[in-house]
């Protein structure tokens, strides 16, 4: 009895200290976490920061939608900021008429889809050849592929214009399709490098097995390698689709006639709606057409956003799995 009391007196303080330090530890783990992302505090900061940045990303789109739905009176009224007093669909009607939406949508879709499909196929072939096949001067060719990525389009646009007009490709779909067939589409070099990286990471034994079974190289590529590269194909297709959809600089040179994509028509919308101001539109910020322009802009980004929403999951996992960046 006496002895235990002595022990308690001797070690009680220590036990209490251990108890307290345990409690502090537990709170600390709860708040700060064992990993960076586990704790409450870290989570809060994470959500806060991400939400701020996400707001900055979403804000222009919200602005676009809200402006597109405003009538002119709300647009000029400084007390109306985000939510219009009266929701009007008139701007969308003007925009659809102004850019001839169905026709332009069709043009853009034809260009984007056909060129992207061709680009996937050709870039996959070229990338495969650079990764696995015997090609003379392979190092030099790879360097040239990278060079085509570095050359800004502005340097070669005039010679290209002359070449295309000699081949009488201007103002047709083929002005984009034919370069894509010959591996020189929009950012082809990047896609070739992606495919090269992907095929390089495939084991050699696969090809050897197929070769032993008597498969030709073409059969090996189309039957085994291309299906294997599904995720890479999807990533390349989506990137290519979106870049073709959004491109502005090239069509502003090559497609000036009737066959114009959405981006060019958006640029010309001001002239269409206000023919009297032709030529001086850069100096005036015209509030009367702002709503229609925003409506047109929204109509333009709607299809890619829908496509992306459907393919989002495969896109993300595809990027993670392709080893694009190894």
């Amino acid at each position, binding site marked *: 009895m006496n002895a235990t009391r002595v022990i308690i007196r001797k070690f009680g303080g220590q036990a209490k200290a251990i108890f307290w330090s345990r409690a502090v530890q537990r709170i600390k783990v709860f708040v700060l976490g064992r990993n960076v992302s586990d704790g409450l505090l870290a989570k809060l900061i994470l959500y806060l920061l991400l939400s701020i940045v996400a707001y900055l990303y979403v804000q222009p789109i919200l602005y676009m939608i809200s402006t597109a739905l405003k009538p002119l009176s709300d647009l000029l009224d400084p007390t109306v900021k985000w939510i219009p007093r009266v929701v009007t669909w008139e701007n969308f009607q003007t925009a659809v008429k102004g850019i001839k939406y169905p026709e332009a949508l069709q043009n853009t879709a034809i260009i984007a889809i056909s060129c992207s499909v061709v680009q996937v196929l050709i870039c996959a072939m070229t990338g495969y050849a650079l990764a696995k096949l015997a090609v003379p001067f392979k190092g030099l060719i790879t360097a040239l592929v990278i060079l085509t990525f570095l050359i800004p389009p502005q340097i070669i646009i005039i010679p290209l214009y002359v070449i295309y007009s000699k081949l009488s490709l201007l103002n047709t779909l083929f002005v984009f399709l034919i370069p894509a067939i010959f591996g020189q589409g929009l950012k082809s070099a990047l896609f070739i490098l992606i495919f090269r990286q992907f095929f390089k990471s495939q084991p050699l034994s696969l090809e050897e097995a197929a070769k032993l079974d008597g498969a030709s190289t073409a059969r090996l590529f189309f039957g085994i390698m291309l299906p294997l590269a599904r995720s890479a194909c999807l990533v390349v297709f989506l990137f290519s689709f979106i870049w073709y959809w959004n491109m*502005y600089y090239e069509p502003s040179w090559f497609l000036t006639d009737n066959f114009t994509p959405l981006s060019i028509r958006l640029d010309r919308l001001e002239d269409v709606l206000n023919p009297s101001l032709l030529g001086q539109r850069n100096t005036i910020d015209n509030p009367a057409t702002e709503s229609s322009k925003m409506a047109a*802009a929204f109509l333009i980004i709607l299809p890619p956003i829908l496509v992306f929403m459907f393919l989002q999951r495969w896109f993300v996992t595809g990027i993670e799995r392709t080893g694009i960046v190894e």
Partner: protein
Amino acid sequence: MKPSNEISRQRRLFHSKRYGIGLLFMLPWLIGFCVFVAVPIGWSIFMSLHKVSVVPGGFKYERFGLKNFKDAFVVDNVFPIELITYFQQMLLMVPIIVIFALLISLMLNQRFPGRFIFRAIFFLPVIFATGQVLSELFAQGAGEIPFLEQYNLQPMVEKYVGLQFATTVMDVLGRVVLILWYSGVQILIFIAGFQTISPSVYEAVRIDGASPWDSFWKITLPASVPFISLNVLYTIIDLFTFPLNPVLQHIRANMFKIDTGYGYASALAWIYFGFVFALIAVVLWLFGRSMKSRGKRS
């Protein structure tokens, strides 16, 4: 004699067949490169050495030698200034974009509920940062944050950065939103890159008692050096082919002036390309060196 001859013949046949298949796969690209890249490049260099004027039915060339290149610096009083200003801005913007992308992708790489929604939002820039839509939006002033005026940052920046760089810094600050919008692909590359670091490494260092802070500096950062270099390169290329940048607009304006024309514009474009190429070479050399020294140590 005969058999060995036969063998060498067969070997040659085999090799030419192998090369043939490879070339067959490369053929579209090779043709395309010659027609749509090599010829235009040669032509553009040729143009830059001449005064090009448009006459009915084609171009008229007048030999100029290197005069176009000299004029760009001696006669033109806009181009050198714009080139230097843009390069200053670029040198500031590239690190900001890459570091911002790194931070965001680090956050997105954590596991937390609602991650999918955030990831979807952060892919938005990939969808339409390249487009006319975005420039239209910015022309309307949709993406601006008015904090520069609100907090009157100008005097502060001038005080801390020095007068000669203050305008550059202010310009860059004014484009913060644009910077955010141009980091879409970079975020993607970083997220993909983080998947290549094996989680067992993190577990091992945690057992050894490393804090998250340590594991970031000792593992995540060194392992993502290749992705950082890739992103720096991508950002440089992205910024310098960005059609709204002042240098390219100047080049474009010169194309249609009668007294300067295509020849002068091509010369300007090649000077610009030369500068950017030098920048890329320096970046590659720096990253190559850091990777090599890392390889030696481990």
